[in-house]
């Protein structure tokens, strides 16, 4: 007998929001790739291909739950409800940006949304998420904390330190490792032992909490496992590790050189998380093709408006660089 697609167990409104969020991330990043190389300064890292992870996890979180993000952080921010206009404004270095234009792509945060910051230091956000969970526990709140990071960060000593502390204090933290197969220009296989590359979630066992390998390109699977992990953490059972296998479709940063074999990238493009969702929504009768198109058009308009907002916002005065050194 044919197995029922788990997408049919989901609330249709939730699926629709998830689809819209994934399209927002995709279109935000697609436009950003051009903008950063034409009219913006600095550099930015694309989340294209990994949309299902941030979206699926954030869909299972509450607004007052915390996340820490990474240098590849636009997707986490959008998934947690970030304002694309203020994000673009930050990328343009404008005063309407989330950090008043001071910090750019690597450092977008919105504390009202529980986003405790993207982070320019690989693994830097992981103990911060653990500290937020420590705070939640001390305040007797049932908030949880999610640390997003890549497989490169998982080899930092800081991951080990943070995971161990989360375990011994039984803190409500979900570690979400995005295994996107490239650590800047280094292959995943180069930095992980062959005996663990198929499932780095087994590292969780050594700390004493559960870990699961999941398909990071399947937003339904991410959502379902995230729901389970969040419930586990929120109910006081301690941390959880989700190893989400995915692929970095774009180069390390937008405009970087690319040493990856074309056929490898092409193979992963066939497993596109958005196309995967569209097909399944259609097959399950959740959404018609025309409604998908309507959503895409709507998101496209939102992104265009967000870019306009950013372009029209003010540049900071030089003296603004002297503000906020101390509170």
């Amino acid at each position, binding site marked *: 007998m044919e197995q029922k697609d788990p997408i049919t167990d989901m609330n249709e409104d939730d699926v629709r929001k998830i689809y819209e969020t994934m399209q927002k991330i995709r279109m935000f990043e697609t436009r950003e790739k051009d903008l950063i190389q034409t009219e913006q300064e600095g550099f930015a890292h694309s989340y294209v291909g990994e949309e299902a992870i941030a979206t699926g996890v954030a869909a299972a979180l509450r607004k007052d739950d*915390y996340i820490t993000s990474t240098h590849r952080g636009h997707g986490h921010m959008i998934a947690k409800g970030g304002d694309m206009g203020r994000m673009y404004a930050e990328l343009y270095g404008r005063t309407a940006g989330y950090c008043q234009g001071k*910090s750019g792509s690597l450092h977008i945060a919105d504390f009202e949304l529980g986003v405790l*910051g993207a982070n320019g230091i690989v693994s830097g956000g992981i103990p911060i998420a*653990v*500290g937020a969970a420590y705070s939640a526990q001390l305040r007797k709140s049932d908030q949880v904390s999610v640390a997003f990071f890549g497989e490169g960060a998982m080899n930092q000593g800081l991951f080990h330190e943070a995971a161990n502390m989360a375990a011994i204090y039984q803190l409500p933290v979900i570690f979400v490792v995005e295994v996107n197969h490239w650590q800047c220009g280094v292959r995943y296989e180069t930095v992980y032992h062959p005996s663990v590359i198929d499932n780095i979630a087994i590292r969780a066992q050594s700390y004493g909490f559960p870990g699961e390998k999941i398909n990071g390109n399947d937003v339904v699977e991410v959502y379902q496992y995230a729901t389970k992990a969040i419930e586990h953490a929120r109910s006081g059972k301690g941390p959880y590790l989700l190893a989400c296998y995915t692929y970095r479709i774009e180069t390390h940063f937008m405009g970087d050189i690319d040493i990856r074999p074309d056929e490898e990238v092409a193979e992963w493009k066939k497993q596109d998380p958005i196309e995967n969702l569209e097909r399944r929504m259609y097959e399950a009768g959740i959404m018609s093709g025309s409604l998908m198109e309507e959503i895409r058009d709507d998101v496209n308009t939102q992104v265009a408006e967000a870019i306009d907002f950013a372009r029209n916002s003010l540049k900071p005065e030089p003296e603004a660089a002297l503000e*906020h050194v101390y*509170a």
Partner: protein
Amino acid sequence: MQGTASSPSLKLLWNTFTHKVETNFGRKPMRKIEFRTAIREAMEEEMRKDPLLFLFGYDVGEYGGEFRVSQGMYAEFGDRRVQDAPINENGMVGLGVGASITGTKAIIEIAFMDFLPMAMDAIVNQAAKFNYTFAGQRSVPLVLRTAMGGYIRAAEQHSQCFENWFVHVPGLKVVVPSTGYDAKGLLKSAIADPNPVVFVEHKFMYPMKFEVPEEEYSIPLGSADIKREGTDVTVIATSYMVHLTLNVAKKLEKEGISVEVVDPRTLVPLDEEKILESVRKTNRVVIVHEAHERGGWGGEMAAIIADKAFFDLDAPIKRVGARNTPIPFPQVLEEFILPSEERIEAAIREVLS
């Protein structure tokens, strides 16, 4: 007293011993408590008021702190409020940052300043920059307590003074108390401060007794203190160096040399006004710190004085710091490297000559 065979060993730091350093500074007699007790009292008083303030570090729990600073606190406050940590300095400070931006407040203890290099990312890249990076969305009201300094035969990796590393990083405040009175009052202000504060104690001083009032008080960050008034030369000294300098001042007084001892107490923020006022009065300056002379904060201090009071100077500014080598273990070598009363005296005589 320093530089004699009676100098205490590291072991003695675990026990009370009577120290000969004069600590009255002209105030009326009051109870005397150890340096570490003064620090403990500041933490206890604030933790009783704020149930979301917690002390975090290895050995701070049942053991009572590597230098017995938190003795008895675990019994009063229990788990999570006085929480033993694994040995993972970077993770500890990182956890403290996360906790301090989400409604609670951490005092992190890393007993030896020599271990702070293990935590540099959390201190320098995370805590120090948070308020700036996110344009004031959230500051990090974290206190990092640590102990610097030698004179205890602890060798290369347990004797160092890195306070200037943190002076160099915008966003951090740096406190270097020299007495129990100052330590308690400044720690209260550090805990109340919305910014990350590196609070640098001196391990040799933990058993030293100081006059500390029973009633609560605090000392604002950024207020220097004249530890001894004088007219001939200004010696700017911090932490344990204040006591060596006071001994020298007492000795020179007999020769009619009047030494003013200025203790900045906090390096960031720095009370330039009070320091420069003293310089303009005496016209001669010696700067003493235990950290290595090369790249120490004394160079910065000298530059500020040269910039703002150059025409008030009657002699070149002299610095006394550790010689530019690692800090060796046995007494005969350590004493040769670290600042001594003899070297401070020689520097004073040189600027007066």
